[in-house]
């Protein structure tokens, strides 16, 4: 066998696994989604079915809000940590990036500890204000949970990028008399922008597909992954579950693709 054939053989194990457990299952999902009496028209349901449409709206709105908030908070913290050297910095960095791969279910539990029925915020407000504030199981709780797993990702990216940015540009602006705010808005943020857009897209993609957090919090707003799960398990509505899964996949992929088009870097989401 020639070297080229032998090298070609090296594709085989990965491609076998990939086809068997990803490509074929996705193809099956697509086939299953149009298998109902309505055929392709099932996809109109994402607009016509009130429950689905509402869920898609809620999921997208909450994901957009989380993305904006975590880019703002994580961007500021990441820039700060990337630019300042002080005692305890490494410790702060470790704290801020540690939750990066906490699973969504654990994040849900964190929010219950913070704002649940027996949570810290509840007992603090009970003692101070006399009313118990509990928001873990509302839309705000879901938002807080998504923020929890998004912020560390943005911090890590912003910090790495801030360290690589050419600081002489900022120095020049400063020497020319720009105020610190002007330097931040006109020089630093534009420099960070590609990184912020790509990490923002990843936050969006992660939030939109997040299942564990919403599942643990059992919130009153039904995000799309939860709808898919209940359609499949409770209603045995495989056609709709498959259709919604594909819609969710396409929205996620599209967000990452658009960000990639804007910034020119390869992105992949992650799951929570």
């Amino acid at each position, binding site marked *: 066998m020639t070297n080229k054939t032998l*090298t*070609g053989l*090296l*594709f085989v*194990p*990965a491609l076998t*696994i*990939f086809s*068997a*457990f*990803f490509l074929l*299952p*996705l193809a*099956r*999902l697509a086939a299953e989604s149009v298998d109902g009496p309505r055929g392709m028209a099932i996809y109109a349901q994402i607009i016509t079915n009130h429950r689905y449409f509402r869920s898609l709206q809620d999921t997208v709105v909450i994901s957009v809000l989380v993305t904006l908030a975590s880019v703002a908070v994580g961007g*500021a*913290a990441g820039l*700060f940590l990337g630019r300042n050297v002080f005692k305890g910095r490494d410790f702060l960095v*470790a*704290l*801020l990036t*540690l*939750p990066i*791969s906490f*699973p*969504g*279910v*654990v994040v*849900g*539990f964190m929010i*219950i*500890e*913070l704002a649940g029925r*027996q*949570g810290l915020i509840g007992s603090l407000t009970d003692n101070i204000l006399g009313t118990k504030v509990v928001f873990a199981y509302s839309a705000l709780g879901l938002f807080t949970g998504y*923020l*929890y797993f998004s*912020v*560390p990702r943005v911090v890590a990216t912003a910090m790495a990028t801030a360290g690589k940015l050419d600081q002489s540009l900022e120095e020049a602006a400063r020497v020319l008399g720009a105020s*610190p*705010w002007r330097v931040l808005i006109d020089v630093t943020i534009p420099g960070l922008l590609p990184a912020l857009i790509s990490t923002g897209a990843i936050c969006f993609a992660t939030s*939109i*597909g997040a*299942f*564990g957090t919403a599942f*643990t919090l*059992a919130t009153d707003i039904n995000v799309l*992954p939860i709808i*898919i*799960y209940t359609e*499949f398990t409770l209603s045995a509505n*495989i056609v709709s579950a*498959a259709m919604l*899964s594909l819609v969710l*996949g396409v929205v*996620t*992929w599209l967000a990452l693709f658009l960000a990639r088009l804007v910034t020119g870097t390869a992105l*992949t*989401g992650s*799951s929570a």
Partner: protein
Amino acid sequence: MKRGPLFWAQLSVTLLASLFLTVPIALTILTAFAANAFRGLSSGLTMDWIGKVLNVYGETILRSFYLALAALAVCIFCGVPVAYAFVRFTRCRLSALLEESLVLPLSVPGIAVGLGILLFWGTVNWFRHSWLFILAGHVIYCLPFMVRSVTAVLRVAPLDVQEEAARTMGASFWGRFFGIVVPAASPGVIAGSLQVLTLSMGEFNISWMLQTPFTRTLPVGLADSYASMRLEIGAAYTVVFFALIVPLLIFTQKIPALVDRLRHGRDSGRAKIKG
């Protein structure tokens, strides 16, 4: 540099963000060891909850551990060869397309991947009920991280020169693969392995879709305990999970420095041989 209001604003955001991220972890640890979470620490400290978790959920912990190791083995077995093939066929369109496609599972929500696997393979009974079913989902989700990590390392390694040298001295294809490519890939394999282990241990979405009562993993057990057990048990279980995953995460944070040292060590070794 003078520390203006901007500095202090950024510092406050940073501190608030770290409080937001760490306070719930601290609360969880407190709850896990408090005799009664509702009355707080004044109720005394106890290991009872941890003991109970190990008793009730011990199996899921072990299963997740073995599953992560199995996922790692498969990811190395599939990931290193394909990464090398990607590097060798860099200019081939089809290979580039494959490289792109292999990371697709990360852009598709886990719940969708799980549903797909369930629909396609769910009827194969022995497979559906074995732990291999969960393993399949984990591998699909973890493989891209291994491939990415190894490909990045191999792309910058001086493979051409070394392989050519080995070839002229009569090394076979497999001799070169195991003698040159695999050692060159090792820093990438180490970094990728840590990612695979961490991700597999924490994977919930796919595992939840694919689980049977006999294939529950740690995160699946966690979700169960959150829904059906008292707060202290959920917290204790979470602490057990942290104890397993935090060392991996800390290692991951230290990886760049570690890889650097590895590389320097090898370079100095080479210099010695040359001298």
